[in-house]
C-alpha cells in the first residue's frame, strides 16, 4: 500500500514538473496577472495532491489542473472587486493590442508558454533576474528551488521575484510573442536567460552543491521547450546544441575527489555520446540556411572538441576559423582569449602568447582569472617557469571556487618543483 502511494506520488510530481509551466502560462494568458496565476496554480496542485492519490490521475491531467485553477481564479475575482476591475481593464487593453494566439491542436491545453518566455526575459527587467523568472514560471520550479539554484536565501529570491513581477504588472510588460520584425532584437534575451541558467549550473557543478548539475539539465529542458515552440529559429537549435555538447562532458569534468578535470585531461570515453550526436545534429541545423549566430558558432566549436579522440587530433585550424567568426559576432576580449588559446594549439605556444600580450591592457579582462591561467600554461609549455609561476600566482589571487584553486596550485607546483 505504501509502495503504491509512493508510485502515485512520484507520477504526480512528474506531471507537475511537466505541466506547471504550461498551466502558469495558460493562466497568465487568461487572467493577465502573474500573482493570481501562481496562487491558483498552487491551489490546483494542492487539490490534485489531495484527490489524485485516492481517485487516480485523470486522463487529461493538464486540463484538470487548468479547470480547477480557473475556478479558483474566478472565485477570487468574485471576492476581490478591486482586483477584478484591474484585470478587466488589463484584458480590454490586451485585446486592443492583439488577438489571442491560436490554440495548440495536438494537446489538451493551448500552449501559451512562448509568450511567457518573452515576458520573463523582457529587456526591461534586470538581466540577473530573467533567468530566475524563467526558472520559476517556465521550468515550474518553486521559489525555494529557484533560491537554491542561485545559492541565495529563499527570502532574498522571493524579494527579487516580487520586484520583477511588480514591474511586469505596473509598467505593463506585455504577455505576447513579438512580431517577426521584432524577433531578432528580442529572441537573444530569451536565449541569454536560458543560457544563464545553464552557466549558473556549471559555475559550481564542480563544487559541493550537486543540486546545480540539475540546473544545467533544467536549462536544457527549457531549451527543448523553446525549440518545439520556435522550430524555425536556428539560434534556438544552436543554444540547445551548445548546451548538449557541453553537458555531454559532465561526468568527465570532475575527478573522484571532486577536483575539476580540464578538457585536455578528461577521459573522453566517459562523455555522453548519445548527447553528442544530438548536439551535432543541432549544429547542422544552426549553421545551415543563413549567416550563423553566436550560439550556433559556439556549438560548432564544442562539437569539434567532442568529435576529437584527443586534444592533439582536434581540428585546431577549424576551431580558430570558428573563433574568427565568433569574434566578428561578439567582439569581446573573452572570445579573443579563447581564440588565442586555440591559435596556440594550432601554431604553437609562442603565437598564442603574442596574442595574449595584445590583450594585456584590456580592462575587461582585469580580474578574469582564465587570462593569467592561460598565460601561465603557455609560458610553462615554453619552459619559462619563473614567468609561468608568476602568472599562476596572479590567477590564484582571482579565482573563487576550490576545485579551480587546487588545479592552479598543482600547476604552480609543477613549475616550481625544481
Amino acid at each position, binding site marked *: 500500500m505504501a509502495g503504491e502511494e509512493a508510485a502515485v506520488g512520484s507520477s504526480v510530481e512528474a506531471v507537475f514538473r511537466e505541466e506547471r509551466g504550461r498551466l502558469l502560462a495558460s493562466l497568465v494568458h487568461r487572467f493577465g496577472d502573474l500573482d493570481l496565476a501562481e496562487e491558483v496554480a498552487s491551489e490546483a496542485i494542492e487539490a490534485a495532491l489531495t484527490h489524485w492519490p485516492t481517485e487516480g490521475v485523470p486522463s487529461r491531467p493538464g486540463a484538470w489542473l487548468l479547470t480547477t485553477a480557473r475556478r479558483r481564479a474566478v472565485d477570487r475575482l468574485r471576492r476581490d472587486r478591486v482586483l477584478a476591475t484591474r484585470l478587466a481593464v488589463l484584458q480590454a*487593453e490586451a485585446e486592443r493590442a492583439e488577438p489571442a494566439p491560436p490554440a495548440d491542436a495536438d494537446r489538451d491545453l493551448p500552449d501559451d508558454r512562448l509568450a511567457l518566455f518573452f515576458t520573463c526575459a523582457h529587456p526591461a527587467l534586470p538581466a540577473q533576474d530573467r533567468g530566475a523568472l524563467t526558472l520559476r514560471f517556465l521550468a515550474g520550479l518553486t521559489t525555494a528551488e529557484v533560491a537554491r539554484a542561485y545559492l541565495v536565501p529563499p527570502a532574498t529570491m522571493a524579494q527579487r521575484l516580487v520586484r520583477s513581477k511588480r514591474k511586469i504588472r505596473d509598467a505593463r*510588460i506585455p504577455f505576447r510573442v513579438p512580431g517577426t520584425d521584432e524577433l531578432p532584437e528580442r529572441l537573444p534575451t530569451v536565449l541569454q536567460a536560458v543560457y544563464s541558467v545553464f552557466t549558473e549550473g556549471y559555475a559550481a557543478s564542480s563544487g559541493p552543491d550537486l543540486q546545480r548539475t540539475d540546473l544545467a539539465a533544467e536549462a536544457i529542458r527549457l531549451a527543448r521547450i523553446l525549440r518545439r515552440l520556435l522550430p524555425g529559429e536556428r539560434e534556438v537549435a544552436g543554444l540547445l546544441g551548445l548546451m548538449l555538447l557541453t553537458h555531454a562532458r559532465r561526468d568527465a569534468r570532475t575527478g573522484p575527489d571532486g577536483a575539476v578535470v580540464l578538457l585536455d585531461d578528461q577521459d573522453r570515453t566517459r562523455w555522453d555520446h548519445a548527447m553528442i550526436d544530438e548536439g551535432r545534429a543541432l549544429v547542422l541545423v544552426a549553421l545551415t540556411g543563413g549567416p550563423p549566430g553566436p550560439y550556433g558558432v559556439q556549438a560548432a566549436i564544442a562539437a569539434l572538441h567532442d568529435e576529437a579522440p584527443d586534444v592533439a587530433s582536434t581540428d585546431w585550424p577549424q576551431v580558430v576559423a570558428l573563433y574568427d567568426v565568433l569574434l566578428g559576432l561578439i567582439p569581446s576580449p573573452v572570445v579573443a582569449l579563447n581564440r588565442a588559446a586555440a591559435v596556440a594549439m594550432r601554431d604553437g605556444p609562442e603565437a598564442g602568447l603574442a596574442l595574449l600580450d595584445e590583450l594585456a591592457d584590456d580592462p575587461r579582462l582585469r580580474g578574469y582569472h582564465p587570462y593569467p591561467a592561460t598565460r601561465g600554461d603557455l609560458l610553462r609549455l615554453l619552459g619559462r617557469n619563473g614567468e609561468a609561476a608568476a602568472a599562476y600566482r596572479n590567477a590564484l589571487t582571482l579565482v573563487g571556487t576550490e576545485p579551480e584553486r587546487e588545479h592552479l596550485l598543482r600547476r604552480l607546483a609543477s613549475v616550481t618543483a625544481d
Partner: protein
Amino acid sequence: MKYMLLFMSPVGPDGEAVDNGCTFEDWIRFDRDIKDAGVWVSGHPLQDLTTCTSVRVGPAGERTITDGPFAETRELLGGYDVIDVPDLDAALEWAARSPGAVGGGWVQVRPIAEIEMPV
C-alpha cells in the same frame, strides 16, 4: 495605459544639452506621427537650461531660489510626451522612433501612476 516619454540628453561642457543631430523637422514629423496614431495625450518641449530656476523650501519655510538646476546636472530633460498605449512594448516602440533616442540622447519611459484623487 499612460506612459510619459522623457527626452533626455547628456550635458555638454557649455552646460547645455549636447546636440544629437536631430532637426526641428524631425521633431515636427514625430509630433505629427504620434498625433495621427491617436496615442498622444499631452506633451511639451522645454526651453534650455539657461532659463531654468530652482526653488527649495527649508524646514523653517524659508525659500531659496537659485539659477539653474539644483545640483550639477549631467543629464537634461529636453521635453516630454504622455502617450496612451496598450503596453510597455508599444511605449518603447514610440520612444525608439522619437528623434530624442539617437545621437547620444535617450528616452526614459515612465508609467503614469493613476491615483484616484478624493473629490
